[in-house]
């Protein structure tokens, strides 16, 4: 364990996340972990970590960190300008930092969340199988809260890179203000008829109630079918599930919720959850209906890309 950073400014909402806490959802503990898994995994690969090492998730405005030890660092995700001392550093590449350096991550120009990974991964105690922070139950990370000014952050043991790594250009996503998100029907699509048309044909706006728990959208009212119940017996919810509460305004469930009692008209495919994660209040979302086969081929394509990047870095 080595001291790595001292937090000078915490940023808007910076938490420590690994790939998530599995196995406790039946007790009401959500999986948490990064909302944009793709950017998170790449940040780790860029600094030579395994894809599930813990890293910072930055929201809209990044932190300022005093560097206490030598290591490689990478920032991926939303376009937040990164400075090492006075020098601006491109994102989606690794860079070396030395004791005494300062890293500053400024306001996002595009997108909403970034990931800052460091060699060896951020070292905080493993709680119930994970280092991920779940602020709702004060679990994981540092005392179960976002980082604060004055926190000292440790990293795990690891060697450093022989040469900087950069993400192939075609893998770097852009984050437009209007996005198309692919979704599968169900699990309760049978509670809707014309509401289904509304959902897949109209555009929805991200409201200010958008966080790691879920994104509330605003748009044309999605009507339940005549006779369909306003609520169902509470059942587990999966990330990407789109709940329709009685007001007809959809909520996309993300990584900090385990159950829900509203019908879910559709579920965002897992490879597109990252698009939702990068949407900001005021951004616009359309949904495109896809079947399971398409969703699985999108999933495999994303895994292939990550696998090939891993191999590229290893050579």
């Amino acid at each position, binding site marked *: 364990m080595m001291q790595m950073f001292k937090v000078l400014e915490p940023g808007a909402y910076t938490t420590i996340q690994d790939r998530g806490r*599995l196995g406790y959802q039946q007790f009401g503990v959500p999986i948490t972990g990064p909302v944009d898994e793709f950017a998170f995994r790449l940040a780790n690969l860029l600094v030579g970590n395994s894809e599930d090492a813990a890293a910072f998730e930055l929201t809209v405005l990044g932190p300022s960190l005093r560097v206490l030890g030598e290591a490689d660092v990478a920032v991926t995700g939303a376009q937040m300008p990164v400075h090492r001392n006075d020098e601006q550093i491109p994102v989606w590449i690794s860079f070396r930092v030395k004791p005494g350096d300062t890293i500053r991550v400024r306001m996002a120009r595009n997108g909403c969340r970034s990931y800052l990974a460091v060699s060896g991964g951020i070292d905080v105690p493993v709680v119930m199988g994970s280092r991920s922070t779940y602020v709702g139950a004060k679990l994981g990370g540092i005392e179960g809260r976002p980082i604060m000014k004055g926190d000292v952050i440790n990293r795990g043991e690891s060697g450093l890179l022989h040469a900087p790594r950069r993400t192939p250009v075609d893998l770097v996503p852009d984050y437009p203000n209007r996005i198309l998100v692919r979704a599968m029907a169900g699990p309760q699509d049978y509670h809707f008829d014309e509401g289904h048309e509304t959902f897949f044909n109209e555009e929805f706006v991200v409201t200010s109630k958008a966080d790691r728990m879920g994104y509330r959208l605003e748009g044309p009212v999605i009507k339940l079918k005549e006779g369909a119940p306003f609520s169902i017996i509470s059942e587990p919810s999966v990330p990407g*599930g789109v709940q329709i509460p009685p007001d007809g305004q959809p909520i996309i469930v993300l990584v900090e919720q385990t159950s829900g009692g509203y019908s879910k008209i559709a*579920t965002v495919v*897992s490879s597109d959850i990252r698009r939702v994660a990068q949407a900001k209040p005021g951004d616009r979302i359309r949904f495109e209906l896809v079947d399971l086969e398409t969703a699985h081929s999108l999933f495999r394509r994303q895994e292939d890309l990550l696998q090939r990047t891993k191999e590229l870095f290893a050579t």
Partner: protein
Amino acid sequence: MGGLYTRPIYRLAGDRGLLVEYGDAIDPEVNRYVRAMSIALSSAPPPGLKEVIPTYCSLLIYYDPLLTDPTKLQQGLENLSEHLSNIILPLPDTIEIPVCYGGALGPDMDFVSEYSGLALKEIVRIHSEPSYQIHMIGFTPGFPFLGGLSKLLYVPRLRSPRMLVSAGSVGIANDQTGIYPIDSPGGWQLIGKTPFKLFDPSRPRPFLFKTGDLLKFKPITLEQYSSLLTSPKGNNK
């Protein structure tokens, strides 16, 4: 209404989840089936299975799409279901939860008394009499949704939820009763408080109970409440 479906209904919950419904109502037979299947799956997990989340009448299965798909999982479940009758379903554990009712620890007791027309003593007796089955745990880590509340105690939710309900508070609302395991917002009428800590990540078993267990409330005095607070399971240990 209700009862076990003749065949389970499989619903896709996105590209990594399969929801298996065994019935559509609160029915003990459905719940026994869910518990048996959940035990069968954990002793012989099909390839690619990542996590199983049982609720009262359904199971949510998380799977790895690189290793399996719903068709294969469905086949696996159906093979298992043929052997379910061989599974000896363990009796549900009964967990006793001490509760100090009324007073400052149950700030809505007066409302409940007025609404139901019952005296505090009666409310305590009725609420602590049944063994409640834990239908599901959710909302916050360790929050039990309990079935079997007496109709005499049906009360509406608060008009406006409290921003902060402290850990251990016992509430009722409509046909449900439950316990708030951690400090959280909440809209149920609070009638008492347990000194026990329902969720403690530092314990080897962080939770005191699981879905399917039975929960029994045991009325205690304020003195007992205070002394149990510092017991091994207590909130101020």
